[in-house]
């Protein structure tokens, strides 16, 4: 019979699996998301931006554990960079020159944001303006 020593649970010891909220740098993620929206969609009203940031934060907090750990690590590095050169420059840099791994972080946050904006407010203009009702 195949038994694993790497998995203590397989040896009969019941141990909870870590699936709950890992320690994510939530403030860094929220700040980055907010700034990315300002960069991409400058006319998006502040209250809508706040709703998008909250949505993206919830989705990232619900990522599968390995993805959440990876995103958390990248977000922490991005947050550190933002403290040195400023959040606006950091976002501008990453948006203009998508680097491996960091580019995936930008794409993730942007994807969540755009999907939420246009599903929730389909009339939004390409720059984030409220658009025509019913548009």
């Amino acid at each position: 019979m195949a038994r694993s020593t790497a998995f203590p649970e397989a040896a009969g010891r019941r141990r909870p699996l870590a699936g709950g909220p890992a320690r994510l740098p939530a403030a860094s993620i929220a700040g980055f998301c907010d700034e990315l929206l300002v960069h991409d969609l400058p006319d998006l009203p502040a209250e809508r931006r706040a709703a998008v940031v909250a949505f993206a934060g919830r989705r990232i907090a619900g990522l599968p554990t390995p993805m959440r750990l990876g995103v958390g690590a990248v977000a922490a590095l991005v947050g550190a960079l933002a403290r040195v050169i400023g959040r606006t420059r950091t976002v501008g840099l990453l948006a203009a020159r998508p680097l491996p791994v960091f580019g995936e972080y930008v794409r993730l946050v942007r994807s969540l944001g755009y999907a939420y904006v246009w599903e929730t407010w389909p009339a939004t203009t390409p720059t984030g303006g409220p658009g025509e009702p019913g548009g």
Partner: protein
Amino acid sequence: MSPVADDGRISTEVLVVGSGAGGAPTAALLAEAGFDVTVLEEGAMVRQGEVVPFSLDQMDRQYRAGGVTAALGRPAIAYTEGCCAGGGTEINSGLYRRPPEEVLERWRRVHRVADLASADVETICDEVERELSVQTVPGAQTPASEALRRGAAALGWRHDEIPRWMTYPDGTAATAGRRQSMTETYLPRAERAGARLLTGHRVDRLVLERGRAVRAEVTAGDRPVTVEFDHVVVCGGAIQSPALLQRSGLRRNVGRTLAVHPTVKVAARFTDAVNVPDDVPVHQVKEFAPDLSFGGSASNPGLVALALSDSWSRFGPAITEWRHVSVYYAAITSEGRGWVQAVPGLRDPVVTYRLTRKDRAVLARGLARLALLLLEAGAVEVYPSYRDAPVVRARRDLAAVQGTYATTRASVMTVHLCSTVPIGETPAAAADSHGLVHGTANVRVHDASLLPDAPGVNPQASVMAMAIRNTRHLIATVAR
């Protein structure tokens, strides 16, 4: 009466883990054969009509991790998994393709899957099609679907309408169909025959003693539950099933051969309104199959924005006309393979996938050909989903697509995950020809994991046919 005793224990003859395309028919057939069956489903029961198809609300309630899951690699490949009663059948496109004869022949010859006579599979497919009301749309197609047909016809490319498991009780329109997913068909059948379906129950691991699984350790909310059984059939899908087996100490050839159909997308804008926010086109173009096929994707405004987001500065203005825009895909049968690896102590596995050089070339070719097809269909602009892509307005622009496309810049996605516990009689198989996992006497897998490789078509029919075949074998062979 709750089947859970006060001490958090359930006793059952057969435990079925998961309630999707594999688990639901497995449970129904076993219960109808007189077995005492318990189905554990990690997700919730969400009835049709409670959520808008392909919406963020649906993703919250019926997808794993809200639909934000990806296989790591260059590039990462986004995928989705159902996590609800009925599994992927509640959220997929509902398109139905029998396993092609050449695929069955490959499984017999290359993977040495025994007892897989084509006639038997066809008979099971007949039965599935009756149960699920598989049919083509009785009336007019959606404009987005019609565009695919028109473009393919103009180029002389092979195309057809893919049947769906739908009924059309209120008329003949393509968008009036009611999905015959597992919560509408096999799950009620299983419950009528006495099976118990418990939602919100996640199986953390199976406990084995001398090659026999004897109980499952389960979490229901925050409450631990233990399920004792004689047989267990794992049907959690191509990611969760191998992860569960690995967590249970079963790792021989498990999780090493993840197969998918990678896709790249384009959005296309037409002069007329084509967008149907809560449905998908039913035509597919198979001129280059099995290597490459084209079809239509869900296209609500959020998903249109997503498809345009890689080159927003060029493509963004199209979002104001989202009713005239629909999203299409080019899917390939990939040579690449991925891994699913459970990590000690972590709830979710690591998933990776590596595209080969040929895969990348076929994706590039597919993107250009799909753009051409959509131009022929009358699109005024086509927007390929990769970073810094050009707007395609005429055939001459296709050269720029081929010149600038790189798969690492693209948003690559997939929905058809399979083959992580492949069956057969070769040294590479993880389970025997009927899904019995190597090294065990009573652990079986009846979901997309068991397909020996990617079938090159929508896999639900293949999964259901193999699950039914294997369940009948189980019923015929186990001692009671």
